[in-house]
Structure formats: structure tokens, C-alpha cells
């Protein structure tokens, strides 16, 4: 995980990636606050995503709707996906991510779907 819960996931194919904001942006990643959290095959990535979703649900201040409700709907969709139900939930997650990114007041809501989306898109987690 690069850049923290508001950052994204890189995979084994990305080991030659230079950690430079401009280069990372090209592939949809960020250095954020400099987090490099390494996970091996023993780590349950789905569990990590569940925690990321719960983290943003806990930390949303509640002021604006996209973040206040979006973070809890994101968590619910992830819990359903983790339980192995609901193909439709992947597109729901994408829908939620778009609204949070575009319409939230601050950076918290705008980035609350980043890591989850990158895990789905780049690593195929939950798919």
C-alpha cells in the first residue's frame, strides 16, 4: 500500500516503479504521506479493505452527504463482497467512489475510495 488509506495499492509488477509524485500520478498512484506498507501472501487483503472502509466511515466528520453516507455505503458494499455475494456491488462501489471523489467538501471524502478502487482495479481484489 502506497501513500496510506487515502493512497492506493501497487502490485508485484510495480517494484521498478520510481517513487516520484509525477511518475506515480501517471499510473494513478500517490506517495501521499510516504507510506509504504508491504503485504505478503499471508495478509488477507480483503480484510485490509474492510478496515480501510471502516476507517473512513469512522473518521468522516459527517458534514457533507457524499462522504457521510458514501463511506458507510462503501463499507456495506465491501462487507457484502467479502461475504461473496452481489456482483452488482462492484459497480455500486464504482458509483459511490465517483460521487465521493467529485462532490465531497474536502480531501477525506475525495480520497476515501482511492485505495479500495486501486485494489479492485490493479490487484483484482474482490473480483
Amino acid at each position, binding site marked *: 500500500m502506497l501513500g496510506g488509506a487515502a493512497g492506493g495499492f501497487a502490485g508485484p509488477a510495480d517494484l521498478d516503479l520510481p517513487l516520484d509524485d509525477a511518475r506515480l500520478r501517471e499510473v494513478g498512484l500517490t506517495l501521499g504521506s510516504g507510506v509504504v506498507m508491504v503485504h505478503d501472501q499471508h495478509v488477507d487483503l480483503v480484510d485490509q479493505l474492510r478496515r480501510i472502509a471502516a476507517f473512513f466511515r469512522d473518521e468522516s466528520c459527517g458534514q457533507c*452527504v457524499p462522504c457521510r453516507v458514501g463511506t*458507510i455505503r462503501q463499507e456495506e458494499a465491501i462487507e457484502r463482497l467479502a461475504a461473496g455475494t452481489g456482483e452488482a456491488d462492484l459497480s455500486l462501489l464504482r458509483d459511490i467512489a465517483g460521487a465521493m471523489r467529485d462532490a465531497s467538501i474536502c480531501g477525506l471524502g475525495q480520497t476515501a475510495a482511492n485505495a479500495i478502487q486501486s485494489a479492485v482495479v490493479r490487484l483484482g481484489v474482490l473480483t
Partner: protein
Amino acid sequence: MTAIDDTRPEIATVEAMIDGVTVRVAEGTTILDACGGRGCGIPTLCYGETITPRNACRVCMVEVEGSRTLVPSCSRPVTEGMVVTTRSERIDHSRRMVLEFLGSSVDLSLTDHVEEWNAEYGADPTRYGPEAARVDEPVRIDNDLYVRDYSKCILCYQCVDACGEQWQNSFVIDIAGRGFDARVSTEHDVALPDSGCVYCGNCIQVCPTGALMFTSEYDMRQAGTWDEARQTQVDTVCGYCGVGCNLRLHVQDDSIVKVTSPPDSGITSGNLCVKGRFGFQHAQNRPTAD
């Protein structure tokens, strides 16, 4: 005799492009107002005429060229050279999601326009399933004058601002808690009679969702007798003191069922005190037959 200077200061204006049309508006005009204000086609939920917008609901978002995210039209002033788009796939998606987020978490049955907007933007609040978390709050009936049902609350902040520094300066309610658990609340959620509430009812006046309601209206809705089609509105002046507040009496079957004040009134801006708002019973104490 001194000559009167008749030249008025010129109002500064800015020019912008909205949906391909060039507009010139006074400096400080919001995008929403430049588009024609409420009812112009841009949906609004937390926006109220008498309260400074908090842009918390994010349903009025538009695109502004050069902005990474969408922009709340209710509070962003038009600036020189701004290029605004009020409908696009991205905007529609965002509006649809906000409508779904609110529709799936609170009761919007008394909120104006929601059904037509849901249809317009293809919002389906039921797609989050029956397990989707909702704002589950008991109806608070703790006084004779008004009822609070926060399961209808969209956290528009208008009641908080009306109670606080924008109108009443009572500061009896505020947002407590955080995230999805945030609620409008008195301290420790004490009942209104144990709080500093002065029952001006200015919070009811600004509530857009029916979360705050006259007890008279609540009781009639419970009894199934509330019928706005049968109601008339009578504007008059409050007779309690010399201020001369404008009252709007909502009358059904020859009885006053609630009292508001015209938001555009230069005297009250929609605000009243407890006497003007709730002291209407004496007006309908008619002599009985015996």
C-alpha cells in the same frame, strides 16, 4: 443649499459563461442565483433563502472549468471568466448518488421535489438493499408546541444556524457526534424543556424535510386529517407587540393549523417569536352555542 450628488456608485459586475451563454452579474452573485435561483432547474436540498448556505447536501453541484472537483452552485460566487456547466454525465451521476444516499438513509417523504428529481436523475434509493444503515431515531415529542423527527433530517444545518448566530442567538441545538452518527442535538440530547429553547420556532420555519413540525400539524398527519389542498394562507400582522411582524396563517377548515412568516418579509425574514409563532389559539376561541 448643497447640491446633491446624484451619481450612484457603479455596481461591480463580472462576466461568465454558463452552459454556453454569456451572462453578466453583480460581483458576489452565486452560480445558483446567476442561473435564476431556486427553481431554475438545479436541484437544492440544504439551501434556504434566509440562511447562509452551508452547501452540505452537495446536490446542487456543477462543473467549473479548471476545478478538479464539482462545485456547489449555491455558495460559489461567479468570478470573471468562469465557465460553468450545469448538466453533464458527471454532474448527473453526482446528483443521482446524493439523492440515493439521502433517500436510502432518511425519510424524504415530506421533502419537496424529491420524487421528480429521483425520476429525472434515475436515482433508486432501494438499490442499497434492506440492510442499508438508516438514521433511526424515535420521534421526539417532549413539549406541546413542536415535534422533532430526526429520521427525516438531512443535516442541512439550517435549524442550527437559525437557532444560533444567524437568527435567534439561542444556541440550543448543534450537531453532535461525527460521521453517520452525527445528529442535531441539544446538550446530551436533553428534552427541549430542559434546554434553553425559547420556542421561537425559527428552526421549524427553515427545516426543508419536515423533521421539525408543529405539534398541530403532526397530530393532524397522524390522524390523517392534514390536507394542504384544503388549506388557505392568510397574511396578516402580529398583534402582540409593536414590531409588526408579518404572519402567514395556514388555515384548514376555518382553523389555524400552523403559522409561518414570509421569508421575503423585510421585518422578519421568516422569523418570529414564541407568541407570534404559537400563540394563535386565542384567535379561534369562539363563543360556544350555550
